[in-house]
């Protein structure tokens, strides 16, 4: 950043305000629980935890999204809100200070999904231009495409989870069946094919009592039985060769958004899998982007691009400089977040974070 950080902050907030994002504020001190519960150990080891005598564990905010979402929930549980934040966030890091300035944009409750996606990206591009020369690659994708594909392929839940976590990477052709505690029960699994949950539960209870085992620890016999039943239906063999080939082809698709969409359409036609709804949403978004004046050739889209976490549910993007390992701007859509924080149903939500320190002196 330049020698006058405050001026650049003011300019940024003015830009955000012109696009309908009001200046927001959330306390620096936050309950740690939602971050741990939603983001898991990966974020927890970066938290600055603070303990307060006799009270819940607190932390210094590591980002703006969860605090903003919690504030939205406690304020209204309904309605639209678009807010911009700028200020210090705190993460333990091997290199650099644990305190750094981040800007965040958070929009909750907007139901015109594809237009909101395009507008956020347009705003991020303007913010990048305001902060210095626009010299970054914009990578983008849509988690919804992968979700639609894996849903239509009828894959076992465990495989889908691994694919989603890795954006399709890591699940290579003909992944071998992994050894499992269930492998010892082949006969049982055959017997349980088509059994109902009550039978399975009674069966697991018998197994436990024969072995003289008491159910100790948070899983009930019913939960163990459920896993037996699921495995009885699906032999856990992982991916068939043609499924692996299909995923590999999907993963290799990249280009500008229109090219990606066309190739995924071709793939879905070849495989006889209906991805039209997801692709129509993808194309609608591309249309809004063009209408917003975004230069589509700047976008490096890829069918399997996903940001980490199973947090994102749709559009995802990041701005990465050629010489940088980490993005300077990153964000996307996370419609499931508010429900996981206590809302009765999914709420449309989109946002991004801007790491101001990564807009250093232009090379």
């Amino acid at each position, binding site marked *: 950043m330049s020698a006058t950080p405050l001026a650049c902050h003011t300019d940024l907030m003015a830009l955000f305000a012109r696009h309908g994002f009001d200046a927001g504020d959330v306390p620096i001190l936050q309950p740690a629980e939602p971050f741990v519960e939603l983001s898991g150990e990966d974020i927890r*080891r970066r938290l600055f935890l603070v303990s307060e005598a006799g009270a819940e564990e607190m932390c210094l905010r590591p980002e703006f999204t969860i605090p903003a979402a919690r504030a939205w929930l406690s304020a209204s549980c309904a309605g639209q809100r678009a807010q911009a934040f700028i200020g210090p966030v705190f993460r333990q890091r091997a290199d650099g200070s644990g305190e750094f300035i981040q800007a965040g944009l958070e929009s909750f409750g907007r139901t015109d999904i594809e237009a909101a996606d395009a507008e956020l990206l347009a705003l991020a591009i303007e913010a990048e231009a305001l902060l210095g020369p626009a010299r970054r690659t914009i990578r983008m994708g849509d988690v919804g495409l992968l979700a639609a594909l894996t849903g239509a392929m009828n894959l076992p839940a465990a495989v889908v989870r691994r694919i989603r976590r890795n954006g399709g990477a890591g699940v290579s052709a003909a992944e071998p069946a992994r050894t499992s505690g269930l492998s010892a029960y082949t006969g049982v699994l055959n017997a349980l094919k088509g059994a109902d949950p009550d039978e399975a539960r009674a069966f697991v209870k018998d197994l436990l009592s024969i072995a003289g085992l008491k159910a100790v620890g948070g899983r009930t016999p019913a939960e163990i039985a459920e896993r037996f039943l699921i495995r009885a239906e699906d032999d856990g063999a992982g991916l068939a060769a043609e499924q692996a080939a299909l995923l590999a082809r999907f993963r290799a698709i990249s280009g500008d958004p229109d090219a990606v969409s066309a190739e995924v359409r071709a793939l879905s036609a070849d495989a006889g899998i209906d991805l039209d709804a997801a692709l129509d949403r993808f194309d609608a978004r591309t249309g809004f982007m063009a209408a917003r004046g975004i230069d589509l050739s700047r976008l490096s889209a890829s069918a399997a691009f996903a940001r980490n976490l199973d947090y994102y549910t749709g559009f995802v993007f990041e701005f990465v400089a050629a010489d940088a390992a980490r993005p300077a701007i990153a964000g996307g859509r996370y419609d499931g977040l508010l429900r996981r924080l206590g809302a009765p149903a999914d709420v449309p939500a989109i946002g991004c974070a801007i790491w101001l320190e990564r807009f250093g002196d232009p090379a």
Partner: protein
Amino acid sequence: MSAADLVIGIPSKGRLQENTFAFFARAGMPLSQARGARDYRGQIDGMAGIEVAFLSASEIAAELARGAVHFGVTGEDLIAESIPARDEKIVMLTPLGFGHANVVVAVPEAWIDVRTMADIEEVAAAFHARHHRRMRVATKYLTLTRQHFARHGIADYRIVESLGATEGAPAAGTAELIVDITTTGATLAANGLKVIEDGTILKSEANLVAATGANWTHQAREAARQVLMRITAEETARRMREIRTRLPQPLKPLALGPFGATMPFGQPGGEVILHCPVGRVGPLSDWLIRQGAKAVTVSTLAYVFKSDNPLYERLTGGIG
């Protein structure tokens, strides 16, 4: 005592302390606590310029990381857990042959469907979906647990920090599974827990560890050189036997190769003195007799001091 002294962190209690005392005594360096067992400072009898600090094993790991002690005796588990970027901060000099224990993932025995980390991954995801909260892992090994779980692609869990009686957490309902240290597994079994097949995160034993960030004065280096020379002398002696004999013809050193034996003093006046690894003594003696020896005697060695000092070289390689 002066600021230039070599400071050695020694466990302040329990089996680890007993074994450490025995180890140093064997190496001819008896440790003493100046004013009895309640004193936290001590010395090595007969060696000047060395200060012994009695600390808990976890404090020793922390003091090594800070460079507040030069040497420390502590478990690999604590080193791996508590010293990030360990290669920059410490040098593992030598394992000590005691304090063996494994850091393992253990689950309730009643989880009959769970045998591997892959099972845990599935169970954790199902648990998260069903209970709307993450499965809890009780442990004091936060770093080791995160690394191991990440390696196995497990994300649906959270750690509950446990500072004692971790094995009781599942029965008490404060966690679903644990990561803990175990020697025989008996405590785990007594608590209705079983170890996961690929859940052994680390096989640990007590190590002599050096801190790269300590104040390595000339005196401290010299004291370290002597300590390491004595440790090496004892260790070499323990692994070797001395074999003496006389042969009608000179022995060719190359012939000793297959036995891993050496002839440290040559063979002046026809007497042959060999050092041979314990396990090869029988075959070598037999071979010597077939070469014409009338008698072969084998004896244990107390110390084998040599001009080279590999542990000290490892130390200077690490601290520069």
